[in-house]
């Protein structure tokens, strides 16, 4: 068992939709027996984050590009941030790549 990955879910205020996305992702990961550490935050706090993966909505993509984040952080941008299938398709490959 490798070290848990840290995954941050980001939205405008870091309250509602990031938490909603995090809860769906938790279900998806549980069903695949993946146990990672999930948190949610506001985009204002993103530049200082120490994390392995950042998950956010497509409309935030250009803002993340303006920040100089740690190049090791992997990004996952979602169209429907609460769609379990989209989360599985886009997030799980990134987790698997980092865990190996």
């Amino acid at each position, binding site marked *: 068992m490798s070290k848990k990955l840290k995954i941050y879910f980001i*939205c*405008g*205020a*870091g*309250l*509602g*939709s990031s*938490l*909603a*996305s995090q*809860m769906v992702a*938790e279900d998806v990961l549980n069903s695949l027996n993946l146990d990672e550490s999930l948190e*949610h*935050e*506001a*985009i*204002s706090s993103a530049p200082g984050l120490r994390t392995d993966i950042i998950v956010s*909505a*497509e*409309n*935030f993509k*250009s*803002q993340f590009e303006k920040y100089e984040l740690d190049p090791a952080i992997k990004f996952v941008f*979602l*169209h*429907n*941030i*609460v*769609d379990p299938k989209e989360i599985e398709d886009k997030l799980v490959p990134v987790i698997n790549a980092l865990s190996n």
Partner: protein
Amino acid sequence: MGVIDFIINNILTQAAITIALIAMLGLVLQRKSAGSVLTGTFKTLLGFQVLSAGSAIIVSSLTYFGKIFQHAFHLNGVVPSIEAINGQAMNTLGLGNEIAFTFLGIFIVNILIARFSPWKYIFLTGQALLWMATMTVVGGKLAGLSSFVTVLLGSIIGGIFAVAMPAVAQPFVRKITGNDAIALGHFCTIGYMVEAGAAYVFGEHGENKHSVEDIKLPKSMEFLQDTYLSVAVIMVPLYMITAAFAGPKWAGTETTNYIMNAFMQGIQFVVGVYVLLAGVRLLLGEIVPAFRGIAMKLVPNAKPALDCPVLFPYAPNSVILGFITTTIGTVLGMFLMPVFGLAVILPGMLTNFFAGGTAGIFGNVVGGRRGAIIGGVIHGLFITLLPALLVTALTGLGFVNASATDSDTIVAALMYAWILAPILKAV
């Protein structure tokens, strides 16, 4: 009896403890490990105290702003901010305990309605529920109800809103997302219906309908999606301009230049919002998933009603356009309300972005470009009118320079003030 008295007077009257115990209950019911229960309960307790600290910062900044606005324009300028109202109600007015119990009660009533009616909506936007709990408790106090009745009635009214608002919005949400998997859980829905109605009347129809999504908007507007930045962009200049009119005597201190002082006070307001919402994040991070786990078990085919930004990726242009048009409407409203003898309501940037942006999506889907633009301005006027109607009642209770935002919570409070209170007085 000494032990029971101690528990009632020292533990159950501490709102932070009450809400931490509610979180603990949720975690235990989900059979989480002892470690998770402990950390979850502690985080909730910490969240409440962080929220209080943020509230204190906001109040001190708003007190300053109220003073300089009064001397600058000889008018009362009211900042619409549900966060400020919640903070003041929880701390200054000591209603935290009632709000915590109402919050729990709304969860329970929501689950009961969803379980036994065809409307399977489970409202999962925690902060919106907290604002609704706040406003029903404030409403109960306005009507002069006892704490017990306030909590009971607030739970029922809040629970009904928690199911009814997603149900009303669902036909539009289906059109926006193209499926029926998610619902909208955000207590600004009456405002969205106003925008949708205006867009229907004034908007484009049939072949003439052009979606806002087909036009290119400047990328430079996108930073407004950063909540705290967009609050700062408006609040800081607002403080500085007001200080310029008020002059050094009122806006400055003995050692600091008055414009500089206003600048720092404006920043302090944003800091307060930041700290308060960080507290809300800690407070709800454990309770909401627990509620979701319990609700999904008890209600078959439950449909989660989620916070408005889940719709933003479907229509990013409409969000920006909705924000701009709503802001224009709120600025017009600021000048218009005093003409009708109402208070001056300053534009509330948090709600202009989230509610305005979502309303823009509704306007665009109903009435295309023209619908979104005209509907947005009317939405801005509407969400300025509501807090203006509420101001007198709130000031009477002791709130400082603030009124609520989020149309549905104001409508709930106005129901207390205009319908319930007169009935109780007549009886």
